[in-house]
């Protein structure tokens, strides 16, 4: 089978790309190309990473000394509420949707998403709710300050009596964010179900697609429950109902059920795609097939299922009956099983592999170590006696930052570096990347490792002033936080300068196996256009020597010619 057999197709030039690759204006328009939308998500969410980080550094600056001297305690309440909300709803969800947009269509060989206009609309709702959320800094009474979980009765207080207040805007923003995420989830799931290339059965999809699918399924099931709770909270706050108001016969704990029914799975919505990124990168940089591919793929949906029945572990100390505590403790322990399957599969893949320590692989390995650490503290907190002792202390803060930043954040950086050449057509600078990784790893460890001890000794979370006995841990943590702030400088330099004038990337700089790597860098608007390949083997065939798609030479040659 030689290439000359396919001359007619080789001669066919790719369609001209609507809008030249260097036409930056398309990133500011209502563009329906999933790859443009993906990059829009990345640009916007990374800006909010800076904002959320800035809020965090003000908080760490305040906490460097025991008394509340840098900011007023009431301002501090607004700071941590907005920090959490910005990081989750404006950084993590959008950045992961960036990955979904770039990777799902290219990995399954689809020309675009199933509903391109809906996709663009979902993206443009993000700046809308960002404006709604951030405008709360300028309303009388300041932004919402009852924590990112907005528990009543704190969140339904309106002492100044204004209709438009910080809490109102917060709930509105979360509701718009929910609409945007549901639009995205419908789109991603439909695309995965209906638009896979010929020959790509479910067990030939890359693990990232599996995890994104599992994560978006969680969005579809969980988000409406939060929306329901948020509507009731809004009515309580603004229209005088008493769903969560004890004095009117309501039940404040009911809100906690609505909230955690979504917001616990939300952690899996964020971590599952990162598991996908880990699986993709570990195979490429170890040159080995993924150990136990089918188990890793299926474990994603087991996590989806179990993730929906563990939410009460956030409420062990809010008057939950003992039988319910025991039940949810068991389900929480169970979720360590599919997660453990994944961790061991990655370790099995790394074992004996030919490991290349690029920046992205360093972030994966760093993230994996941190995930094992954060996972173990998670199992600790899932046990009732420990949770009742440590609930609402800095131990909890340290645990979930080990997951949210030290695992998910690391995975996001790993993915950005890994797919940067593919979607921008430029190579990043490895040296700057390694400086970024070193600063991030040391900063993150200094920031959150000591807080475990602070929490174990009993330092409560969400306070602006604390007992001087905790001072040492907090000084170390603040140094780490500022280091993380500094770490953003090499990252921004790297991304901006290499995108502007970095060396041109070849179609497959990492010698990776996957449909997206058979496309030119950057891929044309319709990906494979009128030549969607037929998949003939399982993903991750490293060292197997057999092609991924029929007629592979044709695609490789075409990607090189573009």
């Amino acid at each position, binding site marked *: 089978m030689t290439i000359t057999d396919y001359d007619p197709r080789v001669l066919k030039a790719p369609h001209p790309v609507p809008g030249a690759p260097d036409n930056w204006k398309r990133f500011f328009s209502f563009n329906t190309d999933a790859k443009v939308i993906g990059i829009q998500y990345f640009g916007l969410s990374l800006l909010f990473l800076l904002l959320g980080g800035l809020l965090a550094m003000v908080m760490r600056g305040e906490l460097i000394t025991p008394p509340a001297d840098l900011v007023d305690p009431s301002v501090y309440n607004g700071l941590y509420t907005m920090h959490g909300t910005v990081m989750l709803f404006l950084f993590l969800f959008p950045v992961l949707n960036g990955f979904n947009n770039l990777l799902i269509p290219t990995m399954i060989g689809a020309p675009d998403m199933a509903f391109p206009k809906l996709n663009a609309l979902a993206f443009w709702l993000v700046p809308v709710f960002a404006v709604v959320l951030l405008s709360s800094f300028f309303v009388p009474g300041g932004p919402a300050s009852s924590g990112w979980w907005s528990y009543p009765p704190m969140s339904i207080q309106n002492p100044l009596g204004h209709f438009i207040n910080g809490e109102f805007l917060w709930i509105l923003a979360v509701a718009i964010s929910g609409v945007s995420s549901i639009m995205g989830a419908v789109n991603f799931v439909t695309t995965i179900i209906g638009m896979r290339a*010929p020959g790509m059965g479910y067990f030939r999809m890359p693990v990232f697609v599996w995890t994104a699918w599992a994560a978006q399924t969680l969005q579809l099931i969980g988000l*409406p429950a939060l929306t329901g709770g948020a509507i009731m909270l809004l009515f309580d706050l603004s229209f005088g109902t*008493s*769903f969560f108001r004890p004095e009117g*016969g309501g039940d404040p704990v009911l809100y906690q059920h609505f909230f955690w029914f979504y917001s616990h799975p939300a952690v899996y919505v964020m971590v599952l795609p990162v598991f996908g990124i880990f699986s993709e990168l570990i195979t490429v940089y170890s040159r080995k097939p993924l150990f136990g591919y089918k188990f890793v793929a299926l474990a994603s949906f087991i996590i989806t299922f179990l993730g929906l029945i563990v939410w009460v572990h956030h409420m062990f100390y809010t008057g939950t009956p003992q039988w319910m505590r025991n039940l949810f403790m068991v389900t929480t322990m169970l979720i360590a099983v599919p997660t453990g399957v994944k961790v061991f599969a990655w370790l099995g893949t790394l074992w004996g592999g030919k490991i290349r320590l690029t920046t992205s692989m360093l972030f994966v390995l760093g993230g994996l170590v941190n995930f094992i650490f954060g996972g173990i503290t998670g199992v600790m907190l899932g046990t009732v006696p420990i949770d009742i002792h440590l609930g609402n202390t800095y131990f909890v803060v340290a645990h979930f930052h080990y997951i949210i930043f030290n695992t998910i954040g690391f995975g996001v950086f790993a993915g950005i570096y890994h797919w940067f050449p593919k979607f921008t057509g430029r190579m990043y600078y490895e040296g700057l990347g390694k400086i970024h990784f070193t600063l991030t790893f040391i900063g993150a460890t200094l920031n959150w490792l000591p807080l475990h001890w602070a929490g174990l000794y009993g330092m409560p979370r969400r306070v602006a002033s604390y007992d001087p006995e905790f001072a040492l841990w907090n000084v170390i943590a603040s140094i780490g936080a500022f280091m993380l702030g500094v770490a953003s400088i090499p990252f921004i330099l790297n991304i901006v300068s290499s995108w502007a004038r970095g060396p041109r990337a070849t179609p497959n700089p990492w010698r990776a196996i996957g449909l997206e790597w058979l496309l030119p860098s950057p891929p044309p608007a319709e990906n494979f256009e*009128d030549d969607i390949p037929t998949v003939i083997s399982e993903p991750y065939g490293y060292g197997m020597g057999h092609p991924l798609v029929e007629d592979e030479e044709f695609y490789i040659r075409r990607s090189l010619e573009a």
Partner: protein
Amino acid sequence: MTGVNPDLPLNHTPGHVQHDGHNLTGFIIFLCSESIIFIAFFAGYAVLKITSPEWLPDGVEGLETKMPLINSIILVSSSFVAYFAEVYLHKKNLWGFRAMWLLTMAMGSYFVYGQYVEWSELTFTLSSGVFGGTFYLLTGFHGLHVITGILLMGLMLFRSFIPNNYVKGDMGVTSVSLFWHFVDVIWIILFLLIYVWQRTT
């Protein structure tokens, strides 16, 4: 749906193939997701009703069930009318479709009117404790869905006058009709929860 047979003949599939099923797939996924909001409300309603120390506000004896029952029968039967509209459309009988479709819209509108009459005669308000809040929240949220359904049906009716609009397929009508059945099923559960299950203690 794509094949999984690895021994398919050599082919390069064109990227612009029509994916007719997508709209329906996406819409069904959306409906499943939408149903969770109602399930959340129903669960919240049940929890509040069981645990609330004082359920009915002062001066309220309970809810009148006769008019809502007639309303419910009309709404539920409109689902069957919508089904016959679809059957007519499949038989390419456009006027039969329009007549049945319009009848569905009329029955839906009567339901909304009946709801309005019921609301205006009630003595309690949104802020009358948990009872008032949940009643207006559930019926109001469902009512919004009914109104949305009627508007969508109006759009489909309008589109039936565009020549040859339904030659290629009638995904829009199928989706709207599915939405209407969904709204009906939700109402049946809602009726059982609010009107049939009236606690006397």
